[in-house]
């Protein structure tokens, strides 16, 4: 289908927007060709940088009139290609809509434009002793609008929830350019929970221009327990033992030896390099509460067979213990020319089994993989190391990743815990969802966006695509391990 000429689209946009809002030259558009998943690149036909609600609306009306695809983008830190541009479409960047509109310490909410970086929200609320809980590793850069699109998590989800649990309201525009308001500062309004549906919808349903978030009182104290384990299975069992003891830690992270060995020379966090895996368990609350919980956590970890335990003695030490975990991705980048980060989730009890399977896959694909997990949530981030310049290396990494995700589904989990589907996991969606389930997703999409202009081709794979993927990967129409129950 031949769309309108780029020059016509640009002229139409310039007619309704101030001149500096539209980027046309290739070198201006180049920075937008990919998000955090750099393996997927596409130059957008045009880039629009609105500053106001009305400019967003005008952009939408123009795109709708000319039937031009529109892809919204926050800070471009996403890891699934959710913001990969459409080659004949408009890339709408929210970077210039980055004002904190209001911090209301009494109702404990903040109203934000979508381009506000995640960390800025907590900084703006700090004077009131409040903060915004979800803290993706990229929180210095990633935007609240992008967090809403992806339903982002972080290391404190087990206790404080994901974006969906911490966003109270959205304002924005439908593809038709109509104002839409979902939720708000009053809880549990009438009708279907379209707010929950919009969060994590990856830019396929609406364009958000304002986000109302919940602010929480900052815990006065936090302490981190670091535990070493001689094998990954006992580390996995220790995670279950903590939960079974009735403890919900503020964070519960795991790193395997390959991960600690990669980060230690880089950040000198003080990790035990003899351990097959380490756990980082954080307690937060009042000073007395934290003391009580840390003692309990130490007891459980010891009974679960921890070979060594260290408790952070100061805030500086706590942050140093964290620094290794937070720098796992850059460390992977130092170790290998390229790395591919996976994001499946499995029931906690299968963590040991998954690590063993990954080890076997490393041999089979001839690639190394280091593992960092949000173990408390069962959310895995295996980092597959490869060299894109080596012929066939990316293809092997891609297949390696897909196999991990398929095992996640087999074990009763999901192909993505917090990074989203985007373009990257479209094939894996064919494994997790039946044709009827995918049709239901298309139904939701069409309800909001009948013409299919918002971020087309992402999140939901077509029947044709799944059929092709099935021919490649799924033999005889059956999933791998057909004997295992799913969910």
């Amino acid at each position, binding site marked *: 289908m031949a769309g309108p000429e780029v020059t016509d689209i640009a002229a139409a946009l310039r007619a309704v927007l101030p001149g500096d809002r539209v980027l046309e030259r290739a070198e201006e558009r180049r920075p937008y060709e990919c998000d955090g998943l750099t393996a997927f690149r596409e130059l957008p036909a045009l880039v629009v940088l609105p500053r106001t609600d009305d400019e967003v609306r005008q952009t939408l009306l123009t795109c709708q009139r000319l039937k031009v695809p529109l892809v919204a983008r926050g800070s471009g830190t996403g890891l699934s290609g959710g913001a990969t541009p459409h080659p004949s479409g408009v890339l709408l960047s929210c970077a210039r809509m980055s004002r904190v509109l209001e911090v209301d310490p009494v109702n404990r909410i903040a109203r934000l434009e979508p381009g506000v970086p995640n960390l800025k929200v907590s900084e703006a609320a700090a004077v009131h002793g409040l903060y915004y809980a979800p803290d993706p590793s990229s929180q210095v850069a990633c935007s609240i609008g992008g967090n809403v699109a992806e339903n982002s998590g972080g290391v404190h989800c087990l206790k404080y929830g994901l974006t969906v649990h911490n966003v109270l309201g959205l304002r924005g525009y439908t593809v038709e350019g109509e104002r839409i308001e979902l939720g708000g500062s009053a*809880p549990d309004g009438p009708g279907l929970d379209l707010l929950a549906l919009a969060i994590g919808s990856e830019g396929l349903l609406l364009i958000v221009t304002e986000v109302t978030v919940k602010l929480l*009182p900052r815990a006065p104290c936090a302490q981190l327990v670091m535990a070493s384990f001689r094998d990954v299975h006992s580390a996995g069992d220790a995670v279950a033992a903590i939960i079974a003891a009735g403890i919900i830690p503020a964070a519960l992270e795991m790193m395997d030896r390959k991960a600690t060995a990669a980060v230690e020379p880089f950040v000198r966090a003080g990790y035990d390099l003899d351990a097959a895996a380490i756990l980082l368990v954080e307690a937060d609350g009042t000073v007395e509460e934290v*003391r009580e919980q840390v003692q309990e956590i130490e007891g459980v970890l010891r009974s679960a067979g921890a070979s060594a335990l260290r408790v952070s003695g100061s805030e500086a030490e706590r942050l140093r213990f964290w620094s290794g975990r937070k720098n796992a991705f850059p460390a992977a980048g130092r170790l290998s020319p390229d790395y591919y980060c996976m994001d499946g989730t499995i*029931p906690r009890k299968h963590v040991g089994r998954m690590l063993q399977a990954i080890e076997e896959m490393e041999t089979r694909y001839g690639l190394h993989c280091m593992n960092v997990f949000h173990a408390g949530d069962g959310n895995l981030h295996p980092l597959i190391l490869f060299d894109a310049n080596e012929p066939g290396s990316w293809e092997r990494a891609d297949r390696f990743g897909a196999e991990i995700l398929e095992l996640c589904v087999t074990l009763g989990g999901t192909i993505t815990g917090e990074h989203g589907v985007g373009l990257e996991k479209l094939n894996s969606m064919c494994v997790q969802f039946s044709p*009827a389930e995918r049709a239901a997703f298309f139904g939701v999409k069409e309800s909001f966006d009948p013409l299919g202009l918002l971020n087309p081709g992402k999140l939901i794979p077509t029947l044709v695509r799944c059929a092709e993927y099935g021919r490649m990967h799924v033999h005889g129409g059956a999933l791998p391990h057909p004997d295992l129950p799913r*969910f």
Partner: protein
Amino acid sequence: MADIDESVLQEWRERLASARRDRTTLRLRGSGTKDFYAEGLEGEVLDLRGWRGVVDYEPSELVISARCGTPLSEVEAALAARDQFLAFEPPAFGADPTIGGVIAAGLSGPRRMFAGAARDFVLGTRLLTAQGELLRFGGQVMKNVAGFDVSRLLCGSLGILGIITEISLKVLPRPRVEETRRLELSAADAVAAFNRWAALPLPLSGAAWSQGSAWVRLSGASTAVRAARERIGGDAVAPSVAEAFWSALRHYQLPFFAADNIWRLSLPPAAAPPDIPVEPLIDWGGALRWYANVPAEMGVRERARAAQGTALQWRGAAPGGRFHPLSPVIARLHRRLKEHFDPDGIFNPGRLIVRV
């Protein structure tokens, strides 16, 4: 766990097929504890209690999965045996609703502002569609962003999109210690105090006001509860009295709820008292305010709207519908979603605002 005759689902499929063929409608029903709630009851009753049983519960995974017809009491008993609970405290209305009804209605109890709402604990659902297909959304894991979050959309959908046949919920360990303080305060002072305390790192799990008394519940580690008790002051409430109060509030058993005309206002928690000259019952730290027997000319909806909130006619007839009106855009999205999930309009017509 539970052994079940799969023919139940087959029977339901036949009922769906004949409803579509004969152009009749179905009224999905569990125990009927919420027959009074929301809009009209139309269609032939399809009793969903036959598909029951806890299908999976692993305390260390913090997840329970149960079929829709499972009585809430059975789910709660299974959890209590392992010292866990449903932190959103769903109401039972003095009877025993099904877990399917609990999620289809999406109502939450006194802990809602502190622990989360029903929808916050929904991890996965299975949905039997009008076409008789069994779909699965979400799952049994804490984090899952594959596809649209249809599971949470179904929470509170009142059966208009299909039959929720199975639900996976996140559960939490029971707090180690729980205690309640009571303070004699005016309604306005209570709301101000609730919001002051909610901005501090205190282990609040309930904040309500009724007939001149503010009730504040604290839950958590013993040290944290002790420190909070000193901060909040007021009088200690005997555990049996506290339990009776929070249970009656949660399950709509307070004498207040016997009125036959009740408004439920959902407001920003610190909102100034709406100008309604009737003494409220306040829950959720100020975000939920109940009014009984308000004269019709008071314009409750406009007053709720002026306070940035919404008003629902909980009991009693409301001209133009019980729910707060939706904007035209939102109403259109409701219609389109309904048409996609239930093109022949066989499920609960008119129960939740829209009909096909």
